């Protein structure tokens, strides 16, 4: 049974339609890469999943229709979002950022700081004073503290130094290996996505144009819709 089922998803920003027919399924423990060029509807799909924008179509998480739920209740079902642009709580310290969102489960302060030791070293530092990479780690840690069953990472390595990107990809690989967490990944680096993802879904102009095993992704499809 799928953890997340999306079919025929459509969404409009006022009179401008952004999503037409998005189809996507994620099973428990599966890592799925959501791919496509800029402006094709990847982040909008994530916003629809998190109920940040109203949408139509089938949107079911663990048997529950997400369309019936406000954003915070959808998150409480077990959807953890690491948003594009990090959006940490700037005035709170690293520790406070993590504790503000904590919910009971396997992931606590200790586990997050073990995954990202840099966060442990900057425990009492304000989020605003962290580097971009550290803020990204904090955003991932904050989502993990909610003990999600589905973790959504929207451009988690964008604009970061290569060494920090490596750390984040290593953490994602560790999450896949050591936890039963499903992960939905949006990123522009195909090589890393191929290494860590089980499946791929490609979106073009608000429609799912290809989905299947990542290993079976044809080079011409990738070239045509993702540009690499």
């Amino acid at each position, binding site marked *: 049974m799928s953890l997340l089922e999306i079919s025929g998803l459509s969404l409009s920003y006022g009179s401008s339609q952004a999503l037409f027919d998005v189809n996507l399924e994620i099973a428990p423990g599966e890592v799925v890469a959501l791919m496509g060029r800029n402006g094709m509807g990847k982040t909008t799909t994530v916003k629809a999943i*998190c109920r*940040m924008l109203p949408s139509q179509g089938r949107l079911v998480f663990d048997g529950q229709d997400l369309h019936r739920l*406000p*954003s*915070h*209740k959808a*998150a*409480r079902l077990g*959807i*953890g*979002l690491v*948003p594009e642009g990090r*959006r940490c*709580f*700037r*005035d*709170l310290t690293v520790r*406070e*950022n993590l*504790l*503000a*969102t*904590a*919910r009971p489960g396997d992931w606590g302060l200790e586990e997050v700081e073990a995954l990202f030791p840099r966060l442990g070293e900057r425990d009492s530092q304000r989020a605003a004073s962290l580097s971009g990479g550290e803020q990204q780690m904090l955003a991932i840690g*904050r*989502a993990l503290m*909610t003990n999600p069953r589905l973790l959504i990472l929207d451009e988690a390595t964008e604009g970061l130094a290569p060494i920090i990107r490596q750390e984040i990809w290593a953490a994602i690989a560790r999450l896949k290996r050591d936890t039963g967490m499903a992960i939905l990944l949006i990123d522009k680096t195909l090589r890393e996505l191929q290494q860590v993802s089980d499946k791929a879904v490609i979106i073009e102009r608000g429609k799912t144009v290809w989905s299947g095993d990542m290993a079976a992704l044809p080079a011409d499809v990738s070239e045509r819709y993702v540009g690499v």
Partner: protein
Amino acid sequence: MIGERYLNLLVLAALMAVPLWALAADEPFTITLATRAVILALAAVGLNIALGMGGLVSLGHAVFFGLGGYAMGILASHAQSYTPLELFGLTIEGTKSMPVIWLTAIIISALAAWGIGLLSLRTSGVYFIMITLAFGQMFYYFAISWSAYGGEDGLSIYVRNGFPGLNTLVPIEYFGLCFAVLCLALLLNARLQGSPFGLALNAARQVPARVETVGLDPMRLKLLAFVLSGAITGLAGALFADLNRFVSPTMFSWQLSGELIVLIVIGGVGRLMGPVIGACLFVTLEHWLGGITEFWHVFLGAILLLIVLFARGGIVGLLTGKEGPHV
């Protein structure tokens, strides 16, 4: 620069020392001034939960201050006239007991904050300021026309209400009681700031949309903060009315709501001792400059201007060298 913890202790010690000195020097009026500062600080500590932690710029907090005052005035006036209060078919005896009056003030203010919060928290920014101001004006004009309890002239209570084991008519004893209540409110505030609720509220103030995606309901967080805030300000209103033994519609006035905001901004928004420092400075200026010129508010305005321009963390931020939350 001084550590914030040391500064907090220093402020409390100074606030306690002034009336003790006044007692030794036989200056009872100074004790009354200190009591007034403590009560205003308590009202502002309440508002600081909504303003500092929740980012809610409420220009209607005088509603809760006034409700607390009128809770005291109505209960005490019925007790002093030996006539029961008829309310919705219920007969309620008046009382001169402070704990009962405080509880009533807290419950009524909390209920009013819940109702006002439910409506006004649907808005934000300038609309929130305006809607809370509108509620304040509604209560103000209602009190003016409420002739059963003095209308515009207000309501006098002849003898201060009683607290078990204390003679509240002795200024230093009433100061001690108010100071103890302020310390409890500060303790609650300090615990709240570090609690999961306080952190979540702080997060909701900074990025409301983002807290929803981590499973928190910002509306619920802010409503709870508003109710807590209103309840504490209501308790301060009951103490203020008992200090003056007088209640009037001015307790509901928007100027009072504004003054509470001003003293928090001067002391430090979101800082534990911000409201206390602001209230002490306010009462000192009111007494000292007020004796020199009736236009003393001009000097208060100048101080506010300097702080807003050059010390965003208020006096606490200035002394500790740390910036406050960005409200």
